[in-house]
């Protein structure tokens, strides 16, 4: 057992998902018994192709899907949060940036940031503002502008800064690099690294597997609602199936269905 793995066995997780099954409208089953954990200070990534259920997993954790999960348990900071409202889960110290970033387009950049600190009553909010604006100079420049007028990359920065304004213990990110130019993707990951270095735990969903495994301590591979592979990220990076499917290293077979089929079998 390597050191990170030993740590996982002993530490109390910030987030523990056990055997979760989620169905939309009570019958369209998307997650079929997912178990995973995020330990304090860790970045955990979930890889998976389109439609695997990655976003659904985050939405289930945050309590967005009515009456779900069907089965299984979700624990945040040791508390069972099944059936809680998203706002109450957020108030435990979880920040969630959905796919599409969830900024308020017709509020100013500054107002968006202020809302990040909505539940906070402490006196440090003002100094956190300062800090965010130093860290994200573009947000200072665009302070009075409607957030909807920002570029995609700027909106992602705003979403990250807004999430940090809540001083989260756990940050859930759904494809933060979606639709961004490579240079901006690099910037986003730079910030993710900084957040990691500051000790905030993250659950990171990404299509960009190379970048994701680069920052993550641990990773899971989700296929059709099941975790088919997990491990510390260096091990996932070395896994031939991950290399082929998610890191784009081509091997001789190239018919998509065929490849999938073979891979599935290897994992089973």
């Amino acid at each position: 057992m390597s050191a990170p793995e030993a740590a996982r066995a002993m530490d109390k997780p910030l987030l523990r998902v056990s055997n979760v099954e989620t169905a939309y409208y009570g019958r369209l089953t998307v997650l079929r018994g997912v178990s995973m954990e995020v330990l304090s200070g860790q970045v955990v990534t979930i890889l998976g192709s389109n439609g695997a259920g990655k976003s659904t997993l985050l939405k289930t954790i945050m309590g967005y899907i009515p009456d779900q999960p069907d089965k299984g348990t979700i624990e945040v900071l040791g508390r069972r949060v099944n059936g809680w409202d998203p706002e109450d889960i957020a108030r435990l110290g979880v920040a969630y940036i959905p796919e599409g970033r969830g900024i308020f387009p017709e509020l100013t950049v500054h107002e968006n940031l202020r809302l990040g600190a909505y539940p906070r009553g402490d006196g440090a909010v003002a100094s956190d503002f300062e800090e965010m604006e130093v860290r994200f100079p573009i947000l200072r420049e665009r302070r009075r502008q409607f957030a909807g007028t920002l570029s995609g990359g700027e909106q992602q920065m705003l979403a990250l800064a807004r999430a940090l304004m809540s001083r989260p213990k756990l940050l859930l990110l759904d494809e933060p690099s979606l639709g961004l130019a490579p240079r901006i993707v690099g910037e986003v990951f730079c910030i993710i690294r900084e957040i990691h270095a500051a000790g905030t735990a993250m659950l990171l969903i990404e299509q960009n597997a190379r970048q994701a495994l680069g920052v993550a301590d641990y990773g899971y591979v989700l296929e059709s609602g099941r975790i088919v592979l997990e491990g510390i990220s260096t091990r996932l990076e070395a896994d031939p199936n991950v290399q082929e499917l998610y890191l784009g290293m081509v091997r001789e077979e190239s018919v998509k269905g065929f490849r999938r089929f073979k891979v599935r079998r290897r994992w089973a």
Partner: protein
Amino acid sequence: MTQLAQYLVGGLATGSLYALVALGVVLLYRSSRVLNFAHGDIATLGTFVAFTLLGRKLPFSLAITGGLAAAALVGVLFFFFVLRPAKEASLLGKIVLTLGLALVLSGAVQVVWGTDTLVFPFPLSDTRVHRIGQVVVSETSLGTIVTGIVLMTLLYVLVQGTKIGLAMRAVAQNADAAQALGIPARKIYALTWALAAALGGAAGVLLAPVVYLDPFMMLDPFLKGFAAAVMGGMDSLPGAVLGGFLLGIAESVFAGYISFKFKTTMAFAVIILVLLVRPEGLLGRVYHRRV
């Protein structure tokens, strides 16, 4: 000239009523896209409750507060016990639910208070007047204009200048994202219902001394307020105010110079004209909500 000023004053008074009604409609529409067809009937109920409290010898201010609180309570109860449980219903379904509420409330008012017109004892008089230069303003008109503007200012300060107002705007734009930040979206919706209903109630109370009380007193102002909201852009609170005042003034000027009988027809002609030139309404913006 004096004549025109006179009509303008009259238009401002009815306009501020329309604006108050329109604000209630817009508040709900922009937070949840629900058109509240019960808006007029909630207002009527609030006005009747205020009337009854006045009959119990309560001081005017307390009776009015009671009436507005009753209206707000109906709004909140409707949200929690009808709209929330029906949250999976389509938008159209929800709108039909408000229509149901309208019928229920209207029936209840008729049963409890009867259908005869009642006289609402109002501390301001319609016959006592003030003169501003040559222009004559009745106490009631002046009271209506001033109260209307005070309420609109308060609403503006609440929505634009407070933390809770900021949360209201956030929830209106993206409720899911607001929840992710720890904002209790449901409570904010309930608050919005309460505010909208209370604004309607205020319009009802201001209207009562002019038209007497009857169960259908809010029908015309509701339709006008609704039209003003559409003219203003449906999504915009300043638009609702602008639409309300424009409609009131257009009606009053037309009634004065041309025909009293056709003032409503004319009012709607103005709306059609506005919507032809600016389909999104005067201050409406075409923006797509991110999901």
